[in-house]
């Protein structure tokens, strides 16, 4: 319980301290906050591993009056992934967000925003109350929009405003669903909602909440805000926005469909969700092919990679009887969430190093940089392996489990999406990789400290290690798993 609460309180306190303390103390306090929150997240995961899912009723009040927090395997695993990405972002931002490099205003704003975003993400990972989740989502939106606009450039402000428009529309749709659900059942707790007596209005409430969350997850066709916002932000901010922020709304979506209202999952609804995911895989991949800037390629690839996770809706439970373990496809989608987070953060941090080294992320300018900055080139290549889904990465485990689910349940059409998406990823990652590993150097880079270059490499190696050592995370993700994940919707 202490670990769970620490993960929420520590980043909030560190954010306040980073605002209030004099300039000299800000960076040490922020880094201390990052270290402590990282420790709290790992501690939470260890206690979930040893004791099973942890439930806390805030203030001793039970739902429906009080708010329940619950850390299950999925929430704790996302918490650890977030902590690793945040720690890496902090180590990179120590260089990139220096007042002399980024300007005093950007440098001042970055640390509190990053810590607040972390607190909000952790809150969403453990909340069991629909309105509490709404507040968490809004906190994520506000900090993420501010992080997009933090450089103060005209294009960044326009991208941030467009992001805010979409995100607020999504929030209001979600809120409308929450209000209708409360009006019908008098509770906001996910576990109590699962035991409710169904009324006809439930489908409308779930539909509104789902629509709002899809906008926030940037699923096709609501993805148009994502690439400009993620590429306009400074690289460490992009890493958080792309690797972590969409996972929060996606997690709520999974909790709603698999835990709160699983009986509303009709074949048409499941097909629509997965169909939009498949279109996202293809459309995001095609648009990534057409981009000339590294950060835009990586941002469009996020649209595509998030699409895979939506295949879980029809495939979950598909191989419950065919495999020695249950819930293969569900776990595959979770591996995709974790592996994509680590790999995507590594890619954006690598892009940040290139921007610092040559002042641009155009493919023509990063040509040959693997010769001058071999560790960064290697990190980008390793992260690509995860996005491509090549063994032994986490992306491979994810696609293997999803594909087994597709064949075992006779829905083999979805396997084409997995294969086609992999081919598209190979095509759109081929261009940046050939540019980075070209023989001739286009622009002579400035030297980059060794410790900074190692940061994306460690993240990329973790995304591969997650696939190599997949049995421990596999078992961990089963802790507190909803029954519907094994039985299917």
């Amino acid at each position, binding site marked *: 319980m202490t670990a769970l609460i620490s993960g929420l309180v520590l980043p909030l306190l560190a954010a306040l301290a980073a605002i209030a303390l004099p300039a000299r103390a800000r960076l040490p306090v922020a880094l201390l906050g990052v270290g402590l929150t990282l420790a709290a997240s790992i501690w939470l995961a260890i206690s979930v591993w040893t004791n099973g899912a942890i439930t806390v009723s805030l203030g001793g009040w039970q739902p429906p009056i009080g708010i329940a927090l619950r850390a299950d395997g999925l929430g704790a695993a996302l918490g650890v992934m977030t902590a690793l990405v945040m720690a890496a972002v902090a180590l990179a931002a120590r260089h990139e967000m220096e007042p002399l490099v980024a300007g005093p205003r950007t440098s001042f704003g970055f640390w509190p925003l990053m810590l607040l975003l972390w607190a909000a993400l952790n809150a969403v990972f453990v909340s069991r109350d629909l309105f509490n989740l*709404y507040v968490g989502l809004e906190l994520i939106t506000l900090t993420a929009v501010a992080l997009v606009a933090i450089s*103060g*450039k005209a294009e960044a402000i326009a991208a941030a405003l467009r992001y805010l428009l979409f995100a607020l529309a999504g929030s209001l749709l979600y809120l409308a669903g929450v*209000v209708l659900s409360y009006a019908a059942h008098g509770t*906001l707790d996910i576990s109590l909602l699962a035991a409710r007596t169904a009324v006809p209005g439930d489908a409308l409430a779930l539909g509104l909440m789902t629509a709002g969350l899809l906008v926030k997850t940037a699923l096709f066709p609501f993805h148009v805000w994502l690439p400009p916002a993620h590429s306009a932000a400074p690289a460490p901010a992009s890493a958080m926005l792309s690797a972590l922020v969409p996972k929060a709304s996606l997690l709520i979506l999974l909790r709603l469909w698999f835990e709160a209202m699983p009986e509303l999952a009709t074949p048409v609804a499941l097909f629509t969700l997965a169909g939009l995911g498949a279109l996202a895989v293809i459309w995001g991949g095609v648009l990534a092919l057409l981009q000339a800037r590294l950060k835009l390629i990586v941002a469009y690839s996020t649209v595509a990679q998030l699409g895979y996770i939506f295949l879980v809706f029809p495939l979950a439970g598909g191989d419950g009887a065919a495999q020695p373990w249950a819930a293969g496809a569900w776990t595959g989608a979770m591996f995709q969430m974790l592996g994509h987070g680590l790999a995507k953060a590594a890619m954006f941090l690598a892009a940040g190093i290139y921007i610092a080294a040559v002042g641009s992320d155009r493919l023509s300018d990063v040509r040959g940089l693997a010769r001058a900055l071999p560790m960064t080139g290697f990190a980008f290549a390793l992260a690509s392996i995860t996005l491509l889904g090549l063994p032994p990465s986490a992306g491979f485990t994810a696609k293997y489990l999803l594909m087994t689910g597709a064949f075992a349940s006779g829905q083999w059409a979805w396997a084409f999406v997995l294969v086609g998406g992999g081919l598209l990823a190979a095509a759109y990652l081929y261009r940046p990789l050939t540019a980075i590993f070209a023989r001739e150097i286009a622009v002579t880079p400035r030297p980059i400290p060794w410790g900074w270059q190692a940061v994306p490499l460690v993240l990329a190696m973790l995304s591969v290690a997650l696939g190599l050592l997949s049995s421990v995370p596999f078992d961990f993700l089963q802790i507190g798993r909803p029954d519907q994940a094994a039985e299917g919707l």
Partner: protein
Amino acid sequence: MSLTVFAMTGATLVGLGVYGLLARVHMLRRIMAFNLIGSGLFLFFGAAGARGAALDPIPQALIITGIVVALAASALAVGLVVALARSSGTACLPDEAGDT
């Protein structure tokens, strides 16, 4: 009876807000539209909480929280619109510049 009036007023406000959001490109008008939708939802929520014999306190607590969240979002949005107007000379998004 009066509860129906509150709920219908809330629904009307949501409708007005959605219209404003879709029909207007000036960002300040859109922020006002968001606030209209939010207020409509809160009014509806309050009416829903007052239906039973005993008054349900939870919607009131949630509405107050929601108002604070909406205020924070509006403040950030207005700040961004001011920054956009200063840097680009217009309070509309780049590809939507037209009449307000």
